[in-house]
């Protein structure tokens, strides 16, 4: 469980990135943090594994204050996948890359091997086991970075822009994977601009603007509220846009799911034709 209490954060260069954030993320919750560039999304999630410490206020991860323990200690429970995989890949082979963190955490060599195989399999990277990560495509490198975090099975997973550079199939796999994590009562937090992806996943959505949370709720509510969306520089998902732009058909306003939309539209059309 992550508890954030009135957190302010100012960077050394004087920029105030977080202005009084309070929030609780329960175990097993799936949260998407959205908002314009520079709203403080990444700054906020960096508080969760102690990479940044609050200037004012407290962040508790499983009842432990992030200022009291090292990043490495927190990282054992909080996995953080960075936006750009090139900021972490350095090993000679994909296998070594994934084993890096496990060795840092002091896993036994036999366990490490098993977990590496498991993570490679999970993300469809088994064929690249011995390949240099630098020879892979952008999307594959991204998956290697994800695998290198998942390998130690953290209880909380933070993904910064996970869908960038991934084709539809990979996005769908990612979505399935996140759903699977939820059934294991793992917490997943994603930072993203990808409205369509969020609409498909239907998580709890936090909208940020200027270092503050301006909306917090179910995706069906937040992603159809045009007023706050405009403030956060976000366009509603396409399904929601269709529904919002057909005022005469008396459609519900909070629909973001393709299948749900299809059912509603079919019913409405049937009723009209009668």
């Amino acid at each position, binding site marked *: 469980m992550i508890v954030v209490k009135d957190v302010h954060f100012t960077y050394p260069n004087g920029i105030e990135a977080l202005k009084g954030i309070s929030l609780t993320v329960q175990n097993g919750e799936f949260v998407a943090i959205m908002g314009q560039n520079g709203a403080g999304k990444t700054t906020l999630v960096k508080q969760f594994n102690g990479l940044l410490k609050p200037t004012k206020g407290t962040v508790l991860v499983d009842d432990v204050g992030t200022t009291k323990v090292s990043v490495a200690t927190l*990282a054992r429970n909080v996995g953080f996948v*960075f936006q750009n995989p*090139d900021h972490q890949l*350095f090993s000679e082979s994909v296998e070594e890359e994934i084993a890096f963190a496990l060795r840092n955490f002091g896993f036994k060599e036999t366990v490490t091997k098993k977990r590496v195989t498991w993570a490679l399999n999970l993300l469809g990277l088994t064929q690249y086991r011995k390949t240099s990560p*630098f020879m892979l495509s952008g999307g594959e490198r991204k998956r290697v970075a994800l695998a290198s975090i998942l390998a130690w099975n953290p209880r909380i997973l933070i993904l910064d822009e996970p869908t960038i550079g991934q084709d539809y199939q990979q996005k769908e796999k990612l979505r399935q994977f996140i759903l699977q994590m939820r059934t294991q009562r793992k917490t997943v937090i994603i930072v993203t601009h990808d409205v369509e992806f969020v609409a498909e996943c239907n998580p709890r959505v936090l909208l940020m603007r200027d270092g503050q949370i301006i909306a917090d709720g179910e995706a069906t509510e937040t992603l159809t509220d045009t007023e706050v969306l405009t403030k956060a520089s976000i366009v509603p998902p396409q399904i929601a846009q269709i529904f919002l732009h057909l005022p005469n058909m008396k459609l519900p306003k909070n629909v973001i799911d393709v299948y749900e939309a299809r059912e509603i539209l079919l019913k409405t059309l049937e009723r009209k034709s009668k």
Partner: protein
Amino acid sequence: MSVFSGLKFRKVSSPIHNLDPRVKFVYVCAIFVVAILFSEMLPLVILFLIQIPFVLLASVEREWLRSMRGAAFLATIIFLTNIGAAFFRDGYVLTAPSVESAVAMTLRFMVLVESFSVFFLTTSPDHLGLALEQTRVPYEFVFAFTTAVRFVPVLAEEAQTIMDAQKARGLELERGNFLKRIRNYIPILIPLIIGAIRRSLELAEAMESRAWGATKKRTNLYVLKMQRGDFVLIAITFGILVIAIYARLFVRIPTVNELLRSLP
């Protein structure tokens, strides 16, 4: 790192910032030469103080102080080695002249750092490139130089991100013995170097797609022109050089010790 922040340019306008970088460079070189000419304490103190009006005029006191503080560590080492060597040479006694010469050596170092710091604090990389170009350095070299200077802050930021990413994977930089600690930096250096290479290739492609080097004769939007301030600085530089050389050749420079004693 604080030494470097003392060399980082910040865009402001002041009489010193507006000076021609070529003239400023000549001035810095002159100070450099004069600092080497003297090994007595008195002239080096004067040399150190001469620069302070420049710092104040450019209003970069805070950055300048930071670079002085950054240089303090090396300065201490210089002072200790000098005084230590003199201590053993004179047969385990500390004499006033040996203390004075150790202070002088330290001051010489500080003067060098000081003048270079003032130069880099008040000269934008663009101006520096322009100066190089107008002194007929081939444009390819000028471009490489200014690009390198401009990418330093970008690289520093990237290094921070990489460090964060590896810490998030349980890397502890401060763990282990000396050799282990050096090895801890491998996961940071490799992504940093590869990133720099990749970026330079991307930059080359981007530049070529914008017709870099299409014409041999480039023209510049801004052209450096000597102004009144520049001539004043040239005069000052020349004056300092003449006085220094004259003093070196014909004047016996008293030690501070002698000066103190001659006081009533």
